[in-house]
């Protein structure tokens, strides 16, 4: 009944039988226990479940597992290299760019995707690029400052 699906998850191969209606979000959170990917709305409105698919930000709640077959999926757990944070993660820490932290994984991955497309993103680019990610605590100002600080860093 299920279809054999293979993809790469945080750098490691995953192979599994997947039903057509199996959402990537609940697969990650349930089967893989990668719970850094958050449920916020289930309909693509809030961005809390954002993951990277082939480096590009996507809403896990809108994807089924079959749709990521043979692709590279990165969740928040796969972003740092060991203890070494990704520059965007580091910038969030340094700017206190979070409060409750629930939207944070999705924000960070959306920002990583944004910066990979536009490494020198301006403030307006960042605001536009993150506009579909919701934060209820109101950390917007600090999130923009954090992402902007990464954009401004000299690239090695």
């Amino acid at each position, binding site marked *: 009944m299920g279809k054999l699906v293979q993809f790469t998850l945080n750098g490691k191969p995953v192979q599994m039988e997947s039903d057509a209606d199996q959402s990537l979000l609940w697969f990650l959170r349930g089967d893989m226990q990668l*719970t850094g990917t*958050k*449920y916020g709305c289930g309909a693509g409105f809030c961005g809390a479940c954002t993951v990277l698919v082939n480096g590009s930000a996507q809403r896990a709640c809108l994807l089924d597992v079959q749709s990521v077959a043979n692709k590279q999926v990165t969740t928040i757990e796969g972003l740092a290299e060991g203890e070494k944070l990704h520059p965007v993660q580091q910038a*969030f*820490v340094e700017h206190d760019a979070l409060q*409750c*932290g629930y*939207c944070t994984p999705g924000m960070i991955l959306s920002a990583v995707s944004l910066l990979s497309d536009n490494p020198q993103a301006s403030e307006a680019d960042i605001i536009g690029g993150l506009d579909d990610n919701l934060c209820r605590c109101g950390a917007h100002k600090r999130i923009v400052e954090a992402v902007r600080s990464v954009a401004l860093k000299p690239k090695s």
Partner: protein
Amino acid sequence: MYKDDKEKKMKSSTAFSRRSFLKSVGGGVVVLFTTPPRFSLAEESHSVSAAAADSFNAYLRIGEDGRVTCFTGKIEMGQGIITSLPQMLADELDVAVEMIDMVMGDTDRCPFDRGTWGSLTTRVFGPELRAAGAQARGILLGLASTKLSVPIEQLEVRDGVVFDRSNPSSQVSYGALTKGQAIASEMKSQAQVKSAPEYKVMGKSFRRRDAFEKVTGVAEFTADIHLPGMLIARLLRPTAHGAKLKALDVSAAEAIEGVRVVRDGDLIAVLHEKRQVADRALSMLKADYDVPESAVTEENIHAHLMSRAPEGVPVAGGGDIAEGERLSVEVIEHTYQDAYVAHAPMEPHAALASWENGKMTVWASTQSPFGLKGQLVSLLGLADDKVRVLTPYVGGGFGGKGSSPQGVQAARLSKITGRPVQVFWTREDEFFWDQYRPASIVKIRSGLTRDGKPAFWDYRVYFAGARGSEQQYDIPHHRTVAHDRGWTAAPGSHPFATGAWRAPGASSNVFAREQHIDIMAAKAGMDPLEFRLSNCSDPKYTGVLKAVAKGFGWTPAAGPSGRGVGVACGIDADTVVASMAEVEVDRSSGQITVKRVVCAQDMGQVVNPAGATSQMEGCIAMGMGYALTEAQRFRGGEILDLNFHTYELPLFSNQPKIETILIDSADPAPHGGGEPAIINMGAVIANAVYDAIGVRLFELPMTPKRVKAALA
């Protein structure tokens, strides 16, 4: 309100065991301490009935490894006390903040606490925590004095090491002192805490200590916890509040392998090990409801509420209104209205319950772990030590996670199924079962004397509550009357549940008062800042007003000046706050753009300036929502906005430039920080809109439609 006898009853009936606590803590030096009851409006309606109460509310331990642990029923939901409470202890104990661990919101390990709300942690819990720290330091100094044979007066402490001031090589660490000790000391009178010049840690900015966990996805929220054999529950949600279930066909759902359907009174759930199967099963339930007829909608709710308004209760007053009317050459009368607003935390309500060996353990996203525990003890008829509530990180609360019904749902389902059960509300559940900030009405009549001074102030608030209704101006004849009990009202008033929403009532009251004051200023032909300063003698208010004016670069002009600038001020959680805003209004579309908000607050002692600033910014950002876009739509008990595509939260693209100013206060006491800066947002934008286009908006939110109607 908690009555003394109620507290006593709770205490005797639950026989909270201090000894078992101490046993679980292990060795070291332990100080037990209590927080004084503080019956503010913020606490009134939160249920902690039957919860265990004891003579102490928290404790701290200096362990045999020299590490300090603070055990408290308070919880971390983004407000940042996980960072600021250790700062307090670090100063009182002379240890590094890194040496302090926090154990929060676990009812087995932490003593009773009323809950985390009302901006009470820093101002009420904080001083007690500091005193306990000071007492622990005193005990440790006593031990050190014996050990080193040096009089206490001659001892100093640095980084958890006690040493002889005149011979620093004579020293002993806290860890060495507590080794083999098991000292439990109850806090007696107030221990001598340090004074401001001695602070090394408080008053300095510290980054969030939970940041690393939260940016790596490691931080554990309730729904992130998995137990072996866990079932995931999806709940059947009625089509409307007040709807009665007529018929239910569960056969299709039950036919799915592994699905369990539970019907327990009003609680109907489908459960499965896999979320997507539970989702599918829920969609196969065939439910038929009787929905009561109701003509109440967001369009006519205010008239409906006025028809049900209870008698008023005076909350403030002075002079004689009739005399004030005689002195007035102009009487100004307006009605201000506010909408139902959702809490909408990004993390929906979540709970995981495990019924095992006669004990119910529940992890819950809650602002009141002991409140939930109390509910479970009485509902399940269990002994006090047979219910444990644990609180992982909470993904936003804002007052909406005080009553924790999801914890009760999970516990019931776990007991019925005999399996661990996760209840994780969908966004639609969250909007449906939210306890909304109530729609409300404020009616103000006021008068101006011949020389443009306020002559009288007659203020009535309906359904918002009295919080924030006090006026701070020098008005000789005034009266403030509240026609309600705050955020709850008699059945039949609100079409669905209402509850405490960040600074409950204050945003609605400040919207009315500060706009009305502005209208008086305009009538008097005065600059609105000048009008406020010349009619207010409270130095905290004049201080924040002058500070915000300086930061904003305010230049006086009588409104409307066409510049689109506005001012508002108020008090919440004992913190005085003033805001200024600059707006642009597109007359053809009615769209308001808030370009800049500057906010100054006098919160007394500031423990963590970075944290306090974050809270101010968050208040301003969140306040943009109730001011401009947020209002739940409904038809009777049917909730129409169930997700974020129609319920509009503030976005990055509509955030103003935010600047914050913390006053270097003359007041040494700490006051609230989580709520105050949100209260001015409706008023300051409304006043700026008036300054821009010369029209008043008397109803929140200030949507383009309302702007266009006001301009027409």
